[in-house]
């Protein structure tokens, strides 16, 4: 109930923001932070709950983005349907990656997801319809939806809705029997199977949902930049951030990736503006190292230890 209320307040704020926040940069930066909330939350469903570390976030993100671009170019599909199509395509990719878990675990699974990213990026580089390696400029729709006067503000609201849905889904999965099954898989897959957990089905579901959410995050990407090209859509930065944010926030709980994304995403935006855009990559690396060494359970672990005083022995 509290969660529903919080979600409504957030969406309401994003919808009403154009009335009182006129700083264009707020929406531009806020969109990126929200996008990372979705990516980190999605990553955590497979990586945090089930323990399968995915390095291919960039691939899912780009599949969402390019599906949307291709359909927008072909039939001028409206944004809502672009997002659904992007989520469906990336969800399908997630299903295929889920099948990999049949034979690959641990680091081998992770390497396979990097390989998938490289293969798909090569394919898109040679796909001329969507611009190939040199990219494709996108003309945003000229008619503004609802009462909006600025398309970036509209995209900000759309990304807020996607983020709220992603977090709601992660929360639903975590608190119930599905989450318990995924944790059993992470702790010991053999014992999980012998406790009646249909491990393959759960892994396929987790990988598909995780992939679909990443695709949904990627779908508005080209509209946001008015441009798309492979090396930024498939960027390794997405993989690194989507992994670093849950680890910094804490992987055990749905709020962890959200905290990590807000903290890291905001710091990165600030550093990009005040110092340099190269520096923000360094920030991710340094914070990741600091947290892995100093707080292996992330911000949530620190909270438990120092605020709730339930230290791990």
């Amino acid at each position, binding site marked *: 109930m509290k969660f529903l209320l919080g979600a409504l307040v957030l969406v309401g704020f994003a919808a009403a923001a154009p009335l009182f926040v006129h700083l264009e940069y707020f929406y531009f930066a806020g969109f990126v932070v929200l996008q990372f909330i979705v990516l980190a939350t999605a990553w955590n469903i497979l990586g945090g709950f089930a323990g399968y570390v995915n390095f291919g976030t960039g691939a899912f993100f780009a599949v969402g983005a390019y599906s949307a671009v291709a359909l927008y170019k072909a039939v001028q599909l409206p944004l809502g349907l672009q997002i659904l199509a992007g989520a469906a395509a990336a969800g399908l990719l997630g299903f295929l990656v889920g099948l990999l878990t049949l034979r690959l675990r641990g680091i081998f699974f992770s390497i396979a997801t990097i390989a998938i990213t490289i293969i798909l990026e090569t394919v898109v580089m040679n796909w001329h319809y969507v611009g190939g390696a040199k990219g494709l400029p996108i003309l945003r729709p000229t008619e503004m939806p609802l009462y909006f006067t600025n398309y970036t503000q509209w995209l900000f609201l759309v990304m807020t809705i996607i983020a709220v849905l992603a977090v709601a889904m992660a929360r639903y999965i975590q608190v119930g029997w599905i989450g318990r099954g995924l944790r059993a898989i992470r702790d010991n897959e053999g014992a999980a199977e012998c*406790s*009646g957990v*249909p491990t393959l089905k759960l892994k396929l579901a987790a990988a598909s949902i995780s992939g679909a959410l990443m695709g949904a995050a990627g779908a508005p990407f080209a509209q946001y930049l008015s441009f798309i090209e492979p090396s930024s859509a498939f960027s390794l930065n997405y993989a690194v951030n989507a992994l670093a944010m849950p680890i910094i926030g804490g992987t055990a709980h749905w709020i962890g990736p959200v905290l990590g994304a807000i903290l890291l995403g905001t710091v990165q935006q600030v550093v990009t503006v005040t110092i340099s855009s190269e520096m923000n990559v360094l920030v991710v690396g340094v914070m990741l190292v600091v947290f892995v060494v100093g707080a292996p359970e992330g911000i949530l672990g620190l909270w438990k230890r120092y605020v709730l005083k339930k230290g791990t022995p």
Partner: protein
Amino acid sequence: MSQPVDALLKIDNLSKHFGGFTALDQVSVNVGRGERFGLIGPNGSGKTTLINCISGALQNDQGSILFDGAEVSRMPAYKRTRLGIARSFQIPRPFGSMSVLENLIVPLEYVAHSGSLHLADTRGEAMEILKGMGLADKAETLASSLSQVELRKMELARAMAARPRLLISDEAMAGLSSNEVSEVLEILFKLNASGITIIMIEHIMQAVMKFSQRLLCLDAGRIICEGSPEAVVGNPDVQRAYLGA
């Protein structure tokens, strides 16, 4: 020794190869309903491979496994658990990030109450099972911080939460003191008395002799002897397999 008339588990001509190595060679055996069945043999004789084939962790290459009349040898492990085959592991495999209680809730949710979860009081049921095992005071403890004997008991408790008809105990007493062995043995007797068929793999001969109504001895993937505990232990082939004489 005659095979039981009313068999819960019928294994026929079971073989399993790992590359060129034959781990199980045409093993046929029946286990009766409600029976206490002991499985012995030297290290590497195929005991764990046999129960891995029964529980579904491995798939047999040839032969058939009938459980209560149904062919299970091509079923994934989780379906066999839902049919009523549960096991413990030789090296305990707890869900380390969960409390002891939650470890039991997993099979309660996925086996006992799958389909009608909203009606179930899984926490209460898990607590009942833990009480029966003498683990009630550890319910909220993290499973990864249990002692060896507690881990063994938790594994049996988790297997019980799946409401099995056949329980396979894979060296549940290895590494325990003699007091602890009697404790675990008592639990197994109690479970058997409630109607559960039990297959026990064990190296502690005192325990397996006391527990089993019938014994099977494997060596190099073959059955070398089957019968009453006294007859099997007295068998010259069994003595040769163990002592190499």
